């Protein structure tokens, strides 16, 4: 995935994104309900969301799943990847559907990704497979505790 140039975001876009971080209604016409709260029409809201999605201002829109609640697991993993081989290793790691997201970071451990698997055993299986494919070690940092989050995108 390539990083896009920063898209144009206006104040209403920000308010819509902030609102949609809180939740989207489970009713037959959810866009109409959200649009009414902003004093806009359903068609206007849908057009804005399409633009925000196409511009990359929102990366996903829909349900966010908890792997653990489905009997699976999440695990943050890190690798120290030689710079000369970075693109090839990134492609090999990203080819696994269990890799939910992956970031390059400024550190000796320069690749950080999250595995999401349908079984707890799937974490070790996938991490071991990546180690075999790449010849590099995969450090594993499962969460022990998650703290309440106060973060909100400012409206």
């Amino acid at each position: 995935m390539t990083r896009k140039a920063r898209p144009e975001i206006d104040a209403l876009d920000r308010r819509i994104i902030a609102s949609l971080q809180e939740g989207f209604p489970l009713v037959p016409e959810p866009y109409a309900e959200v649009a009414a709260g902003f004093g806009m029409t359903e068609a206007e809201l849908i057009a804005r969301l399409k633009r925000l999605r196409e511009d990359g201002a929102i990366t996903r829109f829909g349900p966010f799943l908890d792997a653990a609640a489905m009997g699976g697991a999440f695990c943050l993993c890190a690798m120290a990847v030689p710079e000369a081989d970075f693109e090839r290793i990134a492609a090999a790691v990203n080819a696994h559907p269990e890799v939910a997201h992956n970031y390059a970071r400024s550190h000796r451990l320069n690749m950080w990704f999250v595995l999401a698997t349908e079984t707890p055993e799937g974490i070790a299986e996938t991490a071991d497979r990546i180690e075999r494919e790449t010849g590099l070690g995969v450090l594993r940092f499962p969460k022990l505790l998650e703290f309440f989050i106060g973060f909100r995108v400012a409206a």
Partner: protein
Amino acid sequence: MRLDPTDRRIVAATQAGLDFTPRPYLAVAERLGLDEAEVIARMSGLLARGVIRRIGAAPNHYALGLSANGMTVWDVEDGEAERLGALVGAREDVSHCYLRPRALPDWPYNLFAMLHGTDRAEVETRRGEIAALLGASCRGSDVLYSTRILKKSGLRLAGGAS
């Protein structure tokens, strides 16, 4: 918790995202040969059980002007980590905060807090505030800036292409 086959099909059909059409749950129902009301009822159940954490948008922090995103990491005394982690997680500029195992000797840090700011100077200022909050219970810290998104697809069920 195991998903029943219909719940699983609904999860698989919605995990890539909802349609931008006036009745998105009807669109899911039609793809799966279900009623709209059943899709809504089952998704409500999945939400209540925590299988779906929430339905909504994932903002791109870069696009929103929060272009500096630092993963701050801290080596906090084990006996204090739970109390101090709660204080860090409650900050409005921290989007994720977890206690994780150390990986000695490579990695001495056990508290991870994703910190956002408009630029690195702001992230560094906020990092200093967190350091002050943690005080003597923190033996060391670092910050890892994200330089590139390599992949961001969210959780996918294997074989669940929709």
